[in-house]
């Protein structure tokens, strides 16, 4: 609570002050919600088979994060701390219902593919985690920035994983065959030279291995992130 009172006394900050910018850029690199904070992996990995699903899921999470952070931040002084989890769940659930209905109406095929994972945004740990750690103690505007930053960090990782899985698993990107076609009779591109898709990439375990490798690369570039054990 001390943070809240401090905020009130502080002189008015410009909208895009350094601190606010940092809220957006930090989660993209050294404080990534997935690889560093270990949040939100639950619903992230199963839907990274294709870039398109990753993009849609990322956008949905950004939407829910930003609006949810805003609502929680506006309500932060009214929520009794004993029932805050339930209040937060209700806010997220209502936003996710909106997302789900929009997806069903405008992108029925993607909605079909994402199946239960849209619903699982509700229990996505990133959202609950940011509500608890940030929106409950900060003013609306920084909360929005924090929502954008973490949402983008999550979406970015999703798209990165999906990029590798779709490129090597099905030889396409965003549904466009970039490596050529392997339909018998009309082969072109790499497939004429005997290239084969790596079907392993489509299977769930490879998503985990790819995230593991991303963490490896990230931590070997920034030694301060290395864990003791």
């Amino acid at each position, binding site marked *: 609570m001390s943070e809240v009172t401090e905020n009130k006394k502080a002189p008015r900050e410009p909208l895009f002050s350094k601190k606010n910018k940092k809220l957006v850029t930090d989660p993209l690199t050294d404080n990534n919600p997935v690889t560093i904070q270990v949040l939100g992996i*639950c619903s992230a990995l*199963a839907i990274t088979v294709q870039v398109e699903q990753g993009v849609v899921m990322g956008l949905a999470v950004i939407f829910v994060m930003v609006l949810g952070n805003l609502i929680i931040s506006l309500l932060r002084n009214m929520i009794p701390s004993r029932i805050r989890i*339930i209040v937060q769940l209700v806010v997220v659930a209502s936003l996710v219902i909106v997302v789900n209905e929009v997806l069903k109406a405008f992108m029925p095929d993607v909605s079909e593919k994402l199946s239960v994972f849209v*619903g699982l945004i509700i229990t996505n740990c990133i959202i609950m985690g940011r509500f608890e750690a940030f929106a409950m103690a900060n003013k609306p505007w920084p909360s929005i920035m924090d929502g954008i930053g973490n949402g983008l960090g999550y979406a970015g990782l999703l798209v990165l994983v999906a990029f590798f899985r779709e490129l090597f698993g099905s030889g396409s990107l965003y549904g466009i065959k970039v490596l050529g076609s392997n339909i018998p009779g009309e082969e072109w591109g790499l497939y004429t030279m005997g290239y084969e898709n790596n*079907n392993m990439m489509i299977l769930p375990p490879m998503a*985990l291995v790819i995230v593991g490798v991303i*963490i*490896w690369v990230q931590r070997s570039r920034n030694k301060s992130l*290395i*864990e003791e054990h």
Partner: protein
Amino acid sequence: MESTLDIFVKAIFSENMIFAYFLGMCSYLAVSKTVKTAVGLGAAVIFVLLVTVPVNYLLENYLLKAGALEWLSPEWADIDLSFLSFIMFIAVVASIVQLVEMLVEKFAPALYGALGIFLPLIAVNCSILGGALFMQERQYSTILDATAFSLGSGIGWFIAIVAIAAIREKIRYSKVPGPLRGLGITFIITGLMGMAFMSFMGIKYADETKKKDATTEVASTIIDSEENTNTNNTNP
């Protein structure tokens, strides 16, 4: 029709919550440092899944599904409340977790001591809500099937977290490259375990045709690609 036993076995092995759908990964990674705490959390997940999925099944079939209100009055037969299912399910999960916590504290203090801190965490564990949503999507025909599914999923989750906790305890004595230490190696090991668990997909279930309709898109892509791999292997 799939038999109840099929659903149960499938939920434990070939459609394992962790290895096939990555549900409950957050607590899986966070609470798997020692076997003891992993057993506690795993038991709590089995318990909560076993209670919440049947309750949500009743809600789904007598309240939310299109035409589910017909038992009240025939005029309400065309009401479809399924858009409310997310909020209903999560409310049920959150309140049951709270209720279970209070009941366990009152009547089984020893169990409460063991599960205590994990119970509140479970409300936001993806595997619980995931169980309810999969139950809704697959439309199990009886409550017995839904219960078998929830028990199987819980046991599958338990096996997964206890196994990774045991491996992580051992890994402390081995030399892992610095940047992979902790989280990175856990991810990769989970991936390898997932590959091992995929071999359970070879189990032949009673009715193969039904299997494809019942599983979700994710699972069917897995099965498809598996078939592709098999055919690829046969013609070198």
